[in-house]
């Protein structure tokens, strides 16, 4: 169970009532700020990976957002993920304005929206961004959380600034500011303010702790806005190395590292990543962009210790990074060019995608990713091992998709095909399967042998399907099981 919890409520009807004016002296300024904080309603459709041909589950939720420019509304990605319809409501208004998602960044949980007709939002104040707030300083969280229909404001103190996981995608970690303000479902996407400026976007909390809220601080927001500046979100880039702390004196001696507290061991290099062919396991990274790296893999930025990957956090695909490292005692200087690493998204939660699948004679094939993995909870150690080592062992070089036989529908043709559910398909008719599209080609090839054989990883005998029976079996089983299409291979451009 994920301990982080997203604050996207599925709550409440809007109740159009005039709101009282804020009586304090900053009233006018506050009133302007409040007006710029909007309520976002989204109607969602969440795919069911266990029946990929079906429409999935319809639902919805609400969140908050705020204006940062002309017809530009910032919110969390999770507020508008899987959304078919997005509506924005102004404070004190009953009108729901249809909106659309312009950019969505699942890796940092941010999204930019626009309304179809921005006339009703003209003249509103655009909120400005401030800096990362100091520890112990006060902030205000503004939004439309559960517990009422009107705008809500809570105050809190900054209690921690840390590099933490973002639960929306499950795999990404960025800078996070922890506050002790009560953040509740529906607060998501709302601004956290300090001195009238945005210090962050409220986005997640801790399930097991009260009054612990997290916000996305401005460096992460600014990066997102800069990334989409060219009209496209290119995602975060990765250095593509895993480090192992050099705390052990014998290990330092073996790697010929001076005893000055500097240097972290490179334990693995991501195949095809930016450092592939440049660094190798056993190298010792000494500095990154001239920031000395300590034995634990940390660098010092503005007096704070942060992990060395912080340097890469602020950069974009195509940017360069200077690395200084030791190899067998010899110092080396290199500059590597950063790039996105799409293969590691196999471990990220996917949103807004229709699940791909191939149906063939009662057998259902699907590509392995986190959504599929969590939908089926595969217990075969072989599938778990292939999933776990997909990136580390560069399995993506041979298999763009790991094709899994997920279901065997009941039929007279399949009644003795047991023990194959949840296994990885290695070969079809003796050919290694590269991805789902390839599997589809092999299964539905025009000139099939008398028997189509499917070899699954770790299963000792092949599945055998007489090709003469495929057509009638497809028709029969699809009708029996309400499967109205035989495959979905994705758009011609692979979804990102």
């Amino acid at each position, binding site marked *: 169970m994920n301990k982080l919890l997203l604050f996207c409520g599925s709550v409440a009807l809007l109740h159009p009532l005039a709101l009282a004016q804020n009586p304090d002296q900053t009233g006018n300024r506050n009133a302007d700020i409040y007006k710029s904080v909007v309520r976002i309603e989204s109607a969602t459709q969440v795919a069911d990976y266990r029946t990929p041909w079906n429409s999935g589950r319809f639902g919805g939720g609400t969140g908050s957002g705020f204006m940062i420019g002309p017809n530009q509304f910032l919110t969390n990605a999770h507020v508008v993920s899987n959304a078919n319809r997005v509506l924005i409501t102004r404070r004190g208004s009953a009108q729901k304005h249809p909106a659309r998602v312009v950019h969505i960044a699942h890796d940092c949980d941010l999204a930019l929206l626009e309304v179809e007709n921005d006339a009703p939002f003209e003249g509103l104040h655009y909120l400005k961004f401030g800096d990362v707030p100091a520890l112990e300083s006060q902030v205000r969280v503004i939004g439309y959380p559960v517990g009422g229909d009107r705008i809500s404001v809570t105050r809190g103190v900054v209690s921690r600034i840390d590099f933490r996981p973002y639960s929306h995608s499950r795999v990404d970690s960025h800078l996070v500011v922890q506050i002790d303000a009560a953040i509740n479902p529906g607060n998501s996407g709302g601004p956290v303010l300090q001195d009238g400026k945005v210090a962050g976007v409220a986005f997640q909390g801790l399930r097991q702790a009260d009054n612990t809220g997290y916000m996305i601080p401005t460096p992460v927001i600014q990066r997102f806005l800069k990334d989409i500046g060219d009209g496209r979100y290119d995602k975060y880039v990765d250095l593509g190395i895993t480090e*192992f702390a050099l705390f*052990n004196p*014998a290990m330092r001696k073996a790697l010929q590292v001076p005893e000055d507290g500097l240097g972290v061991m490179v334990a*693995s290099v991501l195949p095809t990543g930016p450092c592939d062919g440049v660094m190798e396991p056993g190298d010792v990274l000494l500095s990154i962009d001239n920031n000395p790296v300590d034995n634990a893999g940390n660098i010092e930025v503005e007096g704070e210790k942060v992990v060395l990957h912080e340097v890469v956090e602020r950069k974009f695909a195509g940017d360069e990074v200077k690395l200084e490292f030791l190899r067998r005692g010899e110092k080396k200087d290199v500059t590597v060019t950063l790039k996105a690493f799409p293969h590691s998204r196999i471990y990220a939660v996917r949103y807004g995608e229709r699940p791909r699948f191939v149906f063939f004679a009662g057998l259902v094939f699907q590509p392995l990713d986190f959504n599929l993995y969590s939908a089926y909870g595969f217990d075969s150690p072989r599938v778990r091992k292939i999933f776990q080592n997909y990136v580390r062992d560069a399995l993506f070089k041979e298999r763009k998709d790991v094709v899994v036989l997920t279901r065997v529908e009941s039929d007279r043709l399949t009644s003795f095909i047991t023990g194959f559910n949840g296994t990885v398909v290695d070969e079809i008719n003796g050919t290694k399967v590269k991805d789902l599209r390839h599997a589809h080609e092999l299964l539905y090839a025009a000139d099939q042998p008398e028997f189509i054989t499917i070899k699954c990883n*770790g299963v000792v005998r092949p599945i055998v399907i007489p090709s003469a029976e495929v057509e009638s079996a497809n028709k029969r089983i699809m009708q029996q099981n309400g499967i109205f299409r035989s495959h979905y291979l994705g758009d011609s451009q692979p979804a990102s």
Partner: protein
Amino acid sequence: MFPTRPLFFCLALLLVVMVLPAPALAAAKAKGLLRINTTIQTYNVSQPWELNQPQRRRGLGAILEDGNILTTGEMAANSTYIEFESADGAHTVPAEVIAIDYEANLALLKPEKGANREWIDKLGTLGTNGPAKIDDKVNIWQFEDNGDAIRTEGTVRSVDLLSTFASGHYFLCYEVKASMQSASSSYTLPVTRNGRLLGILASYNSKDQISDVVAPDILKRFLEDVRDGRHEGFPSLGIATVLTEDPQFRKWLGLTDEQGGLYVSRLLPGSGADESGLKKGDVLLTVNGHAIDRRGYYEDPTYGRLVWSHLVRGSRQVGDKLALLIMRDGKEQQLEAVLRRPPDHLIPSHMYDKAPPYLIKGGLVFQELTRPYLEAFGKEWRSRAPLDLLDALNNPEDYEEGRKRLVFLSRVIRTPATIGYDQVNNLIVTEANGQKVTDMTSLAAALNNPKDGLHSIRIDDIPYVIYLDPEESDLVDKALLKRGLPALQRLP
């Protein structure tokens, strides 16, 4: 088909049994039965240099005509002390093991040399019995605390191949329906028919009131095997098979509807099957003339439909020859296999009465992977045990090359030599100081030769290499010995 080991009388001590005075009733007359008390100690899985707390186990043994006592293998396995006791508790005598068969779950015991066994000789003996039939009435024997024998009548319900002790080893058993009480928390009870020993009860499921009784055929094989004083064990062919029920699969294999057959999916290297020329992908049609059906059953002249492996494990001795009719590439072919003991496995399936090998260097703890190590991860061990080690258990053929055993770094004791390695555990070891690690002995030898003033140990996951300072780790080792570690290594 193969029930898991049920809860066996362990609640007995907690139950209050109301004993009503019944002076008019005479206790059943028992012959050739005595109590066996054993003290059992197993090794600690995570600290293999230590034994776990001792446990006690009670059961009954059958005194055979030659004066030896037969009981289950489970009673005697891992025992540090065994004694015989008369039903009334008046006599005890220390016992010793003649032979234990963990696979078939049988053990033959005798009183210690020179001990007084006169009282045992007065208890009488039990002759062995021939096979039973379905619906035969049998007696199951227990002792009350006061020494009275309890006789429970049961009925043989079915005959099947079951694994009653060492996992993965299936032997002929009778399933006997009988409603038993718990008495003196006894494991292992003799079962008789017409006053002769029929079998040994290995487990009882109180919910279904079904007990699994090791069949007389298996008792007979075991006693024949140990008659010469040497216990060889039950033979094995050394293959894994898949059923051929799937009609599509059968067509692809070229099998007709009249044929049965088992698809050979794996041959253990060095097994009788391996030497016979049998290949993966062959279909086994008959064994010694008995046709094997598509589910792996044959027609046994005594018991009817039985799983084919009884033809090997329950009916033959090591060294016997077996005639195999197989189908290969659509043609039938005759092969002959000599039966052997199952070949040594990369990952032993059990470690009864064996001390697990280990080695400690500077605080790094190395072990050889065994199935019990993984089973110690609890009831859900198949999902909770470390993934790489589970994979090795499930697919040993991917790890066998160049290895006798799978050595792994099981844990790291926090010492001055292992700073920074605290989080490392359960990683497969491939090399030490440049030498390939094939078992614990090879690791020990490699660690005698540090290279360039350092030990380097190569493992299969991050950090991939672990370094130790030889002087520092020797100091740590000495300190560990001083602080109560009995030895730094136990080699096989």
